[in-house]
C-alpha cells in the first residue's frame, strides 16, 4: 500500500514536472495575453500593434502550412485574405440572420474554394509555374473586387466598411474587446494548425515538400494532400482576412490586399521560420514592430532631417537585408533562435 502510493506520487511528480515544463511557457503567454495585456495596453498599442499583429500572425500561420510545411510557394496570400474579408462581409450583409462567427467561417470557406481553384494547377505544375498561378489569383481577385461593386454593396471603388463585431450576443466594439475576440480566434486556429501538423496528413505535407517523388512512390496521396494543403491554408488565411477587415482596419479597400501584402506575409514566415507555427507569431511580431522601432530610432539619432519617404525606403532596404541574412544564416528563422534561447532563459529563471 505504501509502496503503491509512493509509486503514484512519483508518477504524479513525473507528470507534474514534465507537464509544468512543457506547459509553463504557453500558459504564461496565455495568462499575459488574456490577463495582463488588456489591463496595460492603451488604445494605440492595441489598434496599431496588437490587432495587425494578430491578423498577420494568423495569415502567416495559413501560409506557413502551404509554403513552409507543404513546400508549395504562394505569392497570392493577400488575395485569399481579400476573399475571406469580402466573403464574410457579404454574408453579414445579405444573410443578416447568420451569426457573425459563422460568417467568418463562411468567408474562410470561400477563400478555401478559391484556394482550391488556383491550387488545382499544382496537380500538374511545380515550383515557379505554380507560383505564377498564385500570382494570377492575386491580380484576378483584386480586379474582381475593384470592378464588381456588387461585392462591396455598390461602393464604386470597392471599399467596404465592416459592421461591428458581434458574437454570442455580445458586441465587441472597444479596442480591448476586439483584441480579445481576435486573440481567441487566432489562438484556436493556431492550435488547430499545430495539431494538424502532428497528424498523418501533416506529415504528408512535409513529405511532399522534402521529396515529392519519394512520397508518391511510398503511396502518399500526393494530389489529395496538395489540395488539402491549399484548402486548409486558404481557409485560415481567409479568416485572417476577415479579422483584418472586421477587427482591425474596419474600412477596407481591395488595394489593401495587394501584392505587397502577400510579400509581407511571405517575409513573416521567412523571418519567423518556414514550417513553424510558433515562428509565424514571432515573425509577425517582428514585422509589425520593426517599422516602429526603426522610425523611433531614426528620429532619435538623426532628428527630423529625413522625410517619411526616406524613412520608408530605409525600412524596405532593411527588410530586404534581413530576409537575405535570415535565409543565409538562420533558415529556420526566429523560431530556431527561440529554441536555442529557451533552455538558457529557463535556466536563468529557475536559478532566480
Amino acid at each position, binding site marked *: 500500500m505504501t509502496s503503491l502510493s509512493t509509486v503514484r506520487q512519483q508518477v504524479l511528480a513525473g507528470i507534474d514536472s514534465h507537464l509544468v515544463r512543457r506547459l509553463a511557457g504557453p500558459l504564461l503567454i496565455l495568462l499575459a495575453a488574456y490577463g495582463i495585456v488588456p489591463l496595460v495596453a492603451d488604445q494605440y498599442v492595441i489598434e496599431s500593434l496588437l490587432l495587425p499583429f494578430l491578423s498577420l500572425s494568423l495569415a502567416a500561420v495559413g501560409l506557413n502550412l502551404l509554403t513552409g510545411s507543404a513546400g508549395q510557394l504562394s505569392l497570392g496570400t493577400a488575395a485569399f485574405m481579400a476573399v475571406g474579408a469580402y466573403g464574410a462581409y457579404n454574408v453579414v450583409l445579405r444573410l443578416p440572420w447568420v451569426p457573425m462567427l459563422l460568417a467568418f467561417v463562411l468567408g474562410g470557406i470561400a477563400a478555401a474554394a478559391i484556394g482550391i481553384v488556383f491550387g488545382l494547377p499544382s496537380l500538374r505544375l511545380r515550383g515557379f*509555374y505554380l507560383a505564377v498561378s498564385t500570382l*494570377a489569383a492575386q491580380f484576378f481577385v483584386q480586379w474582381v473586387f475593384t470592378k464588381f461593386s456588387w461585392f462591396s454593396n455598390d461602393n464604386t471603388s470597392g471599399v467596404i466598411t465592416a459592421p461591428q463585431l458581434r458574437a454570442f450576443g455580445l458586441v465587441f466594439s472597444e479596442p480591448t474587446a476586439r483584441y480579445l475576440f481576435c486573440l481567441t480566434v487566432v489562438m484556436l486556429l493556431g492550435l488547430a494548425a499545430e495539431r494538424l501538423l502532428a497528424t498523418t496528413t501533416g506529415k504528408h505535407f512535409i513529405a511532399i515538400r522534402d521529396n515529392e517523388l519519394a512520397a508518391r512512390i511510398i503511396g502518399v496521396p500526393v494530389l489529395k494532400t496538395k489540395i488539402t494543403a491549399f484548402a486548409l491554408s486558404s481557409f485560415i488565411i481567409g479568416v485572417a482576412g476577415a479579422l483584418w477587415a472586421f477587427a482591425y482596419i474596419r474600412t477596407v479597400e481591395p488595394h489593401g490586399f495587394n501584392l505587397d501584402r502577400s510579400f509581407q506575409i511571405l517575409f513573416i514566415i521567412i523571418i519567423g521560420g518556414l514550417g513553424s507555427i510558433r515562428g509565424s507569431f514571432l515573425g509577425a511580431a517582428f514585422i509589425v514592430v520593426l517599422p516602429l522601432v526603426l522610425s523611433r530610432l531614426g528620429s532619435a539619432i538623426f532628428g527630423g532631417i529625413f522625410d517619411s519617404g526616406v524613412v520608408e525606403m530605409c525600412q524596405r532596404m532593411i527588410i*530586404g537585408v534581413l530576409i537575405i541574412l535570415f535565409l543565409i544564416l538562420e533558415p529556420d528563422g526566429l523560431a530556431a533562435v527561440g529554441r536555442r534561447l529557451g533552455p538558457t532563459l529557463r535556466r536563468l529563471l529557475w536559478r532566480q
Partner: protein
Amino acid sequence: MMADQIQFFFEVLIGGLLSGVMYSLVALGFVLIYKTSGVLNFAQGSMVLFAALTFVQLREKGLPFAVAFLITLILMAVLGITVERTVMRPLLNRSPIVLFLATLGLSYIIEAGAQLIWGTQVHALDLGISDTPIQVGPVSISQFDISAALISGTLVAALVFFFQRTRTGLTFRAVADDPFAALAVGLRLSRIWALVWITAGLIALVAGLLWGARLGVQFSLSLIVLKAFPVLVLGGFDSILGTIVGGLIIGATEKLAEVFVGPLFGGGIETWFAYVVALVFLLIRPTGLFGQKVVERV
C-alpha cells in the same frame, strides 16, 4: 465600316506584337540567370528600375548619352558581381524556393536603394526617337514602338548568337546543363555566374531605357517583372526561343483582349489576362512552348 474594323484590329495586333518584343527582352534577363544557375531572379525588375533611374539622372547632370550609358553599365556590372558574391554564393545548393525568396529580398534592397539615391520623382526620358505614327499600307504604327522592337530584337538576336555560337556561350550552356560536371572539367563557375549577372544587368539597362522612355522613369518600372512572368510560363523558364515567341503571343493577346474584351468588363483586365492565358496554356502543356521535358533524376 468593315474595312475600318479590320484595319483597327491590325493596328492593335501590331502594337501588341511590338510591345511583346519588349516583354521578351525583360523575360530574357530571367531566362539567362535561370538557365545558368537555376535562380528565378525576382530582382530583375528592380534592376530595370535601378538602371533607368541611374541613366536618367546622369543624363540630367549633363553627361552625353554614350558616357551615361557606359557608367550605368559599369554600375550594373558592379551590382551584378556584388549580388553574385554576397547573396548567391552563400546560398549555393539551397532549394530553388529559398533562392527565389532571396531575390525577393534583393528586389526590395535595389528598389528602395535606387529611390534613396536618386529620389522618387518621375523622370521623363527622351532617347531621341520620334513617336509620330508612320503609315505602313493602311495601318499606322508608332515609330517608337518599331524602333524599340528593333533594338530589343537586335539584342535578343545578339544574345542568341552568343549562346549558340561562341565559346563562352557554349560554356554557359554547359553550366546550365550540369553545374557539377562543368565544375569537374574545370570551368570556373563563379566567373561564369558573374558574367551572367553582368549580362542580365545589360539587358536590364536596355529594357529600362526603352520602357522608361515609354512610361516615364519611376517606381512602377520595376513592376515590369510582373509582365515577364506570363511570358516565362508560356515560353518555358529555360528557353530563349520560348521567351521570344511567348512575348509575342502575350503582347498580342493582351492588347487585343484589352481593346476588344476589356470594355465588356469595364476594363482593367490587363493586370491578369496574360496570366490566365499562360495558365490555361500551361494546363495543356506543363513545360511551356519550348521548355525542356523534365526527366526526373533519381
